[in-house]
């Protein structure tokens, strides 16, 4: 029933126990992913309607966005762990994949912090050249348009 390893003598296969249990796991994971997506969409709509109402709390919106990001990371965990079967592999293999990806934590934090810092510097005259803004080739960013 399982594969005969005609040209793969170096690898021993011990995959999914049987048809039914694996299918159940697949269905369960599909349902989880769909539910998480629906929750994310509901929160997204929530943010949309909050923008329209005058009673608009910037911090609450940021918090909801944070929740949405965490839900997406949860989806990633399920897709990688179950659909891509990484959870079924040898633990050291999992480690060689997961540990380098932890670089993303620094990556995201550092660069978003930098981006925000540029905005603050631009807005508070922190730039190095203390000249007036004569240049016409200024990108749109310098116009103090509606704050998001």
């Amino acid at each position, binding site marked *: *029933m*399982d*594969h*005969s*390893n*005609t*040209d*793969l*003598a*170096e*690898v*021993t*296969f*011990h995959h*999914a*126990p049987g048809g039914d249990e*694996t*299918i159940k796991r*697949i269905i369960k994971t599909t349902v989880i992913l769909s539910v998480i*997506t629906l929750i*994310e*969409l509901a929160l*997204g*709509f929530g943010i*949309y309607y909050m923008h329209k109402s005058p009673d608009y709390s910037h911090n609450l919106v940021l918090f909801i*966005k944070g929740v*949405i990001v965490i839900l*997406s990371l949860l989806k*990633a965990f399920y*897709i*990688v762990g179950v*659909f*891509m*079967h*990484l959870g*079924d*592999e*040898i633990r050291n*293999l999992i480690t060689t*994949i997961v540990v*380098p*990806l932890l670089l993303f934590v620094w*990556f*995201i934090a550092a*660069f*978003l912090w930098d*981006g*925000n810092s*540029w*905005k603050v510097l631009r*807005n508070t005259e922190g730039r190095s050249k203390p000249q007036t803004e004569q240049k016409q080739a200024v*990108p*749109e*960013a310098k*116009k*103090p*348009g*509606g*704050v*998001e």
Partner: protein
Amino acid sequence: MATAQAQVDTKWWSGGKSPFNVEYGKLMMWYFLMSDAFTFGAFLISYGTIRFSQNYWPDPNHVFNAFPFAGHANLPLAFVSLMTFILIVSSVTMVLAVHAGHHMDKKGVIKWMAWTIVGGIAFLACQAWEWTHLITGEHVVMMDGKIQEIGTTVTKNPWGPEIPGLMHEGHQVYKPGPVAFGGYFFGITGFHGFHVLSGVVINIIMLLMTINGVFDRKGHYLMIEKAGLYWHFVDLVWVFVFLCFYLI
């Protein structure tokens, strides 16, 4: 379920055992996907950096509110949700194809690979519609002192803030939006769409190989599994592209 290594001879370097007890091609696919994850990550994070550095950024619910055949109805998040579900479902059919491969079920592999390909093509069609609508959809802006109607391109877009009180033929006039918007949107979704396209091509090749009995002869359907890893990666990237451009 944790897997144990075949403990016949426990010396690591005496040969006969594959590292991590996994086939070379599968391991290399994982490492390629990790490198691709960093590439997409770099693009998305640079997008985030520029977006954070701007005082104003277009509201995605305002830009992406169209749905095919719905005319000018205001339906934020609707079309992109459809695209997300199409890709998730195609990922599920791919898992089922790999599962059929584990049981040497040729007919099952053919069926599920065919559905995965259909899902991939449907996603590409949706993305093509989205791009076309964005490029050709013209909106009124005040640019260079003139009122113009422009669509979204990599050089300009009409998604700036309103100009209060300024109307043109019954429509509100806007300032042009941040230039970076077009480049990032088309660049990142295009790069992702390119991956979807190559994934569809790979899946078609896998389907043809299955039909021709190549994997039956080999005795295993490992190629399907590797193609599956690539396809799931494409789905996963979409989860984050969807998150960064449409949701937050």
